[in-house]
C-alpha cells in the first residue's frame, strides 16, 4: 500500500512577524515544517511499523524544502519527492492542492496523509482541497490511523472531546490532527548523513489555474486588550502574583 505525506513549510512563529506594506516579507523569514504535517509524517511512519506500506514524503519546491524532505527520509520515510516547477513562496494553497492532487492521482497513492491545517492556509486546507479535487473519500481532524485490508480506520474528533471511529475505503485522504506519539527526533548529523547517501526524486509539475482570492492587506490584529506586565525578575513576579491573589481573596488562609 502506498502512503503519501503531503508537507509544506511555513514561517516560524517563534520569530517576530514584521509586516511591510500590508504583506509579509517571506523571503526574509525562516521557515519550519508545518507542525501538523510533521504529525502526519509521524503517523505514517507508525503505520509503517504495523503494515506493509511505502511512505513517500512529498513537498512542492517553493524555496528550501530539501532539508524538510531529507529529515523525513532520516526519520524513516522510504522516498522523498519534490514537485519542481516555477513556484514561489506565495503559491496559494489552491494551486498547491492541484499539484499534490495531480501527483497522488498519477502515482495511484492509496492513502494520503497531511496536516489538518497549517497556519497560513487562508484559502482552504490542503486535505479537503486534495480530496475534493481527486474525488476521494476523506476525513479531517483525525488521529489513530490504521490499515485494515483495503480500508483505513481512524478516529475523528468533534468538539469538546467527543469523537467517532470511522472506516474509509482507499483511496482516501486524511487531515491529521495529531500522531499517536510525539513526532520522533533525528539529529542533524543523521540528516546530513542521509543527504549524502540518498537523493530527492524530482517530479516536474505545473500549477495551472484554480479559483483564488485576493488579499487586500495583512496586518497585526488590534488586540482587544493586553496584560499588565510584571517584568522579568522571577522573585518580583512571584511577589506580584501573591499580592494579586491576596487582593482577589484567592489564597487559602
Amino acid at each position, binding site marked *: 500500500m502506498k502512503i503519501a505525506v503531503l508537507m509544506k513549510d511555513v514561517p516560524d512563529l517563534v520569530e517576530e512577524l514584521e509586516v511591510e506594506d500590508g504583506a509579509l516579507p517571506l523571503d526574509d523569514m525562516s521557515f519550519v515544517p508545518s507542525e501538523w504535517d510533521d504529525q502526519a509524517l509521524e503517523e505514517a511512519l507508525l503505520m509503517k511499523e504495523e503494515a506493509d506500506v511505502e511512505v513517500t514524503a512529498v513537498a512542492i519546491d517553493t524555496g528550501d524544502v530539501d532539508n524538510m524532505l531529507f529529515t523525513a527520509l532520516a526519520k524513516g520515510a522510504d522516498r522523498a519527492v519534490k514537485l519542481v516547477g516555477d513556484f514561489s513562496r506565495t503559491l496559494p494553497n489552491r494551486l498547491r492542492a492541484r499539484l499534490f492532487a495531480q501527483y497522488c492521482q498519477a502515482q495511484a497513492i492509496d492513502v494520503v496523509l497531511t496536516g489538518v491545517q497549517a497556519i497560513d492556509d487562508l484559502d482552504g486546507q490542503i486535505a479537503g482541497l486534495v480530496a475534493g479535487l481527486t474525488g476521494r473519500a476523506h476525513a479531517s481532524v483525525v488521529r489513530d490511523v490504521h490499515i485494515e485490508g483495503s480500508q483505513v480506520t481512524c478516529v475523528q474528533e468533534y468538539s469538546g472531546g467527543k469523537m467517532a471511529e470511522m472506516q474509509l475505503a482507499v483511496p482516501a485522504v486524511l487531515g491529521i490532527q495529531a500522531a499517536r506519539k510525539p513526532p520522533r527526533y533525528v539529529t542533524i548529523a543523521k540528516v546530513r548523513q542521509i543527504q549524502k547517501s540518498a537523493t530527492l526524486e524530482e517530479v516536474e509539475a505545473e500549477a495551472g489555474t484554480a479559483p483564488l482570492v485576493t488579499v487586500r492587506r495583512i496586518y497585526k490584529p488590534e488586540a482587544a486588550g493586553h496584560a499588565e506586565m510584571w517584568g522579568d*525578575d522571577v522573585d518580583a513576579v512571584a511577589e506580584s502574583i501573591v499580592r494579586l491573589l491576596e487582593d482577589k481573596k484567592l489564597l487559602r488562609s
Partner: protein
Amino acid sequence: MGQVLIVAECQDGRLSDATQELIGRGRELAQATGGTVTLAAFGEGARDALRDADADVAVVVNGDGVQQYNPEVYEEALAAMVEDRQPALVLLSNTTMGMDLGASLAARQARPMVAYCTALWRDDDALLATSQIYGGKLAADVEVPDGAVVTVIPGSWPAAGSSGSPRIEEMPSPAAAHTRVLKVMEAESGGDVDITRADILVSVGRGLQDPDNLELADQLAEALGGVVSCSRPVVDAGWLPRSRQVGKSGKTVKPKLYFALGISGAPEHLQGMKDAELIVAVNSDENAPIFEVAHYGATVDILDLMPALTERLEGRAG
C-alpha cells in the same frame, strides 16, 4: 447577493450558537441586496431545531445516512444543493464539520474559499472577510468572490436574535459508498479530576519542555489549592490525560483564576479559557498572543517561576 447557503449544525436539539451566528450575518448580507437565506440541515432532529430560524428555506436531509455525522454523506448532499441552487455565498462554521467539508466542497465545485473568517462585511461593491492566520498573530483582509465558500470561527460575532419560519424542503440522504462511521464516543467524562469544576487552574503548555517538570506544576497547584490543566500538545505527548485539556477540542473552563504557563495562546486554546475571571500568563516570548487575553503577565521562565512561587506560597502558609 443571491442566495446565502448556511450549513447548520445542531447540538442537543438546538441550532448551535455558531450556526446562529452564521444565520444572523447571512441575513444581514442577504437583506442588503434583496437575497435569501437557505439553511442546509441534517437529520430528523434538525426539523425542530430550525423551525423558527431566520431563514427563507431550510433543506432538511433525512434518512439512514444522517443519523450521525458522515463526511461523505454530508458532502454529497451539500454538493447537490450547491449544484442545484448556485448560492452566491456558502457559510460553514470552522468546527470539525466545517474543517472537514468546507475545502472539499470548494474544490469539487471549483469555488473560491476563505478559511478562518472572523469578520464578514460589505464594502461598496465587494464582500470582504477577515481571515485569522499565523496562529492568531496576523489577520488578512480578503475579497470574497461571488460563489465563495467561507468557514467562520465560532464566536466571531454575536448570534442572531431574530427568528422566522423557513419553508421546509426535504431531501433524501445520499448513500455512503466509501465511508462508515463505526461508533460515536462521548467525551471521556471527568477522568481523574474535573477541570471544569476547579476554581483555580494551573495550566501548562509546551513550554514545560519535559514531563519531569510536571512535578513543578503539581506542587504549585497544591500550594494554590488548584488543579493542573494543559494545552493540547501536552496531551498529545502523553504527559497528561485528555481530560485535562483546555480548548477547542478539549474542555471549556471558566475558573476564578487561570494560570497559563508556557502556553502561546493559539486561537484553539483561547476558545476554551478566554472567559476565565482572572488570567495570569507567564511566557518567555513577550509577543505571545496569550498576553492579549491575560489580565496580568510576565516574561519569565516558567521553570524558574513555578518553584519560586510555590516556595513563597508555602512560606506564607507556614
